[in-house]
C-alpha cells in the first residue's frame, strides 16, 4: 500500500475506489457482474452467515456465474438472519432474509440466473445518508 501523504492523495484513492463502489450502488452497466453482500456481524454469524457465505462463493463459481461475494456489517434485520443483499447488473439491490443453504441455492437458481424474485425479500425500511 502506498502511503497517503496528502489530502490530494486521499481524494485520489477515494475517486478510484468510488467507481468500484458506485457500481454496487447503481450497476448501470448491463455487462457487469453479480454482487452479493453477506451481513457478517455477530448476529449474522451466530445464525449461520459464514456457511451461507462459503456456500454462495463456492457454488457461484461452480455454476459458472461471475460474481463477487463480500462481507458487510449488520443490516439491522436481526429477526431474519442470515441476510444477504444481491445486486444483479443494472438493477436495484434486493435483500433476502433467513438465507440458509437451501434458500441460497434457490436464490442462485432463480433470482441470479433468471432474475425471477423468490420469497423472503426484505424491503429496505431505512434511508441512509450518502
Amino acid at each position, binding site marked *: *500500500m*502506498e*502511503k*497517503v*501523504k*496528502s*489530502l490530494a*492523495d*486521499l*481524494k485520489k*484513492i*477515494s475517486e478510484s*475506489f*468510488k467507481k*468500484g*463502489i458506485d457500481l454496487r450502488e447503481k450497476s448501470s452497466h448491463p455487462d457487469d457482474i453479480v454482487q452479493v*453482500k453477506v*451481513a457478517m*456481524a*455477530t*448476529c449474522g*454469524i451466530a445464525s449461520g452467515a459464514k456457511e451461507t457465505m462459503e456456500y454462495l462463493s463456492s457454488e457461484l463459481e461452480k455454476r459458472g456465474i461471475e460474481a463477487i461475494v*463480500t*462481507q*458487510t*456489517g*449488520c*443490516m*439491522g*434485520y*436481526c*429477526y*431474519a438472519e442470515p441476510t444477504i*443483499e444481491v445486486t444483479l447488473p443494472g438493477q436495484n439491490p434486493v435483500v433476502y*432474509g433467513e438465507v440458509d443453504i437451501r434458500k441460497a441455492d434457490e436464490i442462485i437458481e432463480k433470482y441470479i440466473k433468471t432474475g*425471477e*424474485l*423468490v*420469497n*423472503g*425479500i*426484505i*424491503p*429496505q*425500511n*431505512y*434511508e*441512509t*445518508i450518502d
Partner: protein
Amino acid sequence: MHLLVCGGTGCRASESAGIEAKLKSELEKRSLDQSVQVISTGCFGFCEKGPIVKVMPDNTFYTQVTPADAETIVAEHVVKGRRVESLIYTDPSSKEKVEESAKMGFYKKQLRIALRNCGFINPENVDEYIARDGYLALGNIITGMKPQEAIEIMKESGLRGRGGAGFPTGLKWDLTARTEADQKYVVCNADEGDPGAFMDRSILEGDPHSVLEAMAICGYCIGSDKGLIYIRAEYPLAIERLKIALSQAREYGLLGNNIMGTEFSFDIELRYGAGAFVCGEETALIHSMEGLRGEPTLKPPFPSESGYNGKPTNVNNVETLANIPVIYLKGAKWFSSIGTEKSKGTKVFALAGKINNVGLIEVPMGTTLREVIFEIGGGIKDGKKFKSVQTGGPSGGCLTEKHLDTPIDFDNLIAAGSMMGSGGMIVMDEDDCMVSMARYYLEFTVEESCGKCAPCRIGNKRLHELLDHICKGNGKLEDLDRLVNMSNVIKDTSLCGLGQSSPNPVLSTINNFKDEYDAHVTDKKCPAGQCRDLMEYFIIEENCVGCTACARVCPVAAITGERKEPHLINPAICIKCGACMEKCKFDAIIIQ
C-alpha cells in the same frame, strides 16, 4: 412483473396470506401466472397501513389491501396497466396521493447516520470506507482548520453523548482542549454493558474506521496524539475488525506520525475490559485501564481535567464517535436540522423482547415510541397486547401505553420517568409481570455493583430482597412505601451513576403499575401469571372424571383421589410444575 405481498407478522395478521392466494388465483384465471409472479416479503415497516402490496418494476405501493382488492389489482394494474387509485397511499399531511414508494421518503421512518456504512461496506477493507468519503473529514480538518474552529462546529451541531448521559460533545471537547498538559488522551468507551444492547458492537463490526477517524479528529481538536479504545473481551469479532482496521489505517499512514503530510500525529491502542457493567462508567473505566480496580471515583475532578494517568482525557461513546466524521462532511447545520430542539440527530436502538421485528434500528430523535414499536418493530408478537417498554437498560424505567406518543429524546424520556441510556429497548406484553421485571433488573444491579459505597451495595440488596418477598407472596402493604423511600435514598446518596439510577426500574414500575404491586401484596395474586409462588393449581370438580392420569404424573404425589372420583391437589405439597395440567385431557386443571 412482480407483485410483492408483505408477509411480515403484522400484515400476516391482517390476512396478507389471503391476498397472496387471491392474487395468484386471479393471475391463473387470466393465464398470467407465468409472466407475473407473486412474492411474499418481510416487513415493510409500515404495518399501520398494512397489508401492503408493491408492484414492481413500477414501484406502485398499495396500502390497506383486502383479499377482495386482489382482483382489482390484477384486472386494472396488471392487465390494463392502470394504477388502482383507491388503494394508493394518501399523505396525511399534504392529502396528496403518493404512488411510488421511492417518493414515500416518510414511510421510511429510519434514517441511518451512525449506521450509514453498516451493511453497506466491507468492514475489513479500508478502501471501501475511503470511497465513502472516509478520512476526508479528518483530512479537511487537519489541513484547513484550527482546532478551535473544529470544536465550534461540533458545538453548533448539537451532538450529545450517546453513552447515556447526553452530555454535549462539543462542550466536552472544549473543556478538555482548554486544560493545559504535556499529554492528553482520547478514549473510546466500547464497554457496552447494558443487557440486550448491541449497537456499539454492530458499529465496530460494521464500520470500525468511522470510530478511528472520529478519535483522530477529537485528538486534533483537544491536542492529543494518543487514543485508547476500551472494549470488552466478550466482543471478539469487533476486536478482530478493529485490529484489521488499525493496521490498514497505519499502512496508509492515516494513523501514525505526520498524518497526510501535516504536523499532526495520532495513534490508537486497544485495551480490554473483563465485562463489568460498572467499568462503562468513565472514571471506573479509566481506573481499569490504569490497572487498578474498576471502581468509580467522585467527580470532580472530571476526566477532562484529570483522567488516564492523571492527564486530561476525553471519553466518548462508540455511537457518539460514529456520528462525527459525517457531521464535518455535511456540516453542523445539516445535523442540527435533524431531531428535536434539544436532541439533534438520530439514535440507534436495539429492539428486543415481545416484538415482531427484533433488530437494530436508527431513527431521528423525536420519533415516537409508537412509531418505533408498531411500525418499525412490526407490533407485538403473537397478536398480544402491549404492556410496557423499558428504555435505558438497568438504569431506565418502564413506560406504558400513555407514553407511546412521546417523541423520543433525552429530555422527554427523563420527564416520562425513564431515560435514553445507551439505547436498549425491551418491549413487554400482557404476560410480563412488572414486579418480576423490577426484580430482574435489581438482580443485575446487585450483581454488578462494585460495592464501594453503602447505599448501592446494601440498599440495592435490600430492594432486591423486598421485591423477592413480594413476588413470593410474603409482601406487606407497607413494603411498597419502604421500596419508594429506600429507592430515593439510594438515588440521592450513591457515588456513581450505577447506584444513582439503579432504583429507576422499581420507581417507574410502582408509578405506572401500582395495581400490579397491590395485587401481589394484598390479594397475593400475580395478574400476569408469572410469579410461581402466587399461582395455585386447582382441579374443577365437575370436569374431573377421576382418570388418575394427573396423580400418576405428579412428581411429588400432591394429587389424591379415588378412581372415577374427582381428584384434589394439596397446595402444601404442590411444586407448581404444571405436569398435571399438561396431562389432563378434560381441561379440569386450572391455575388460580
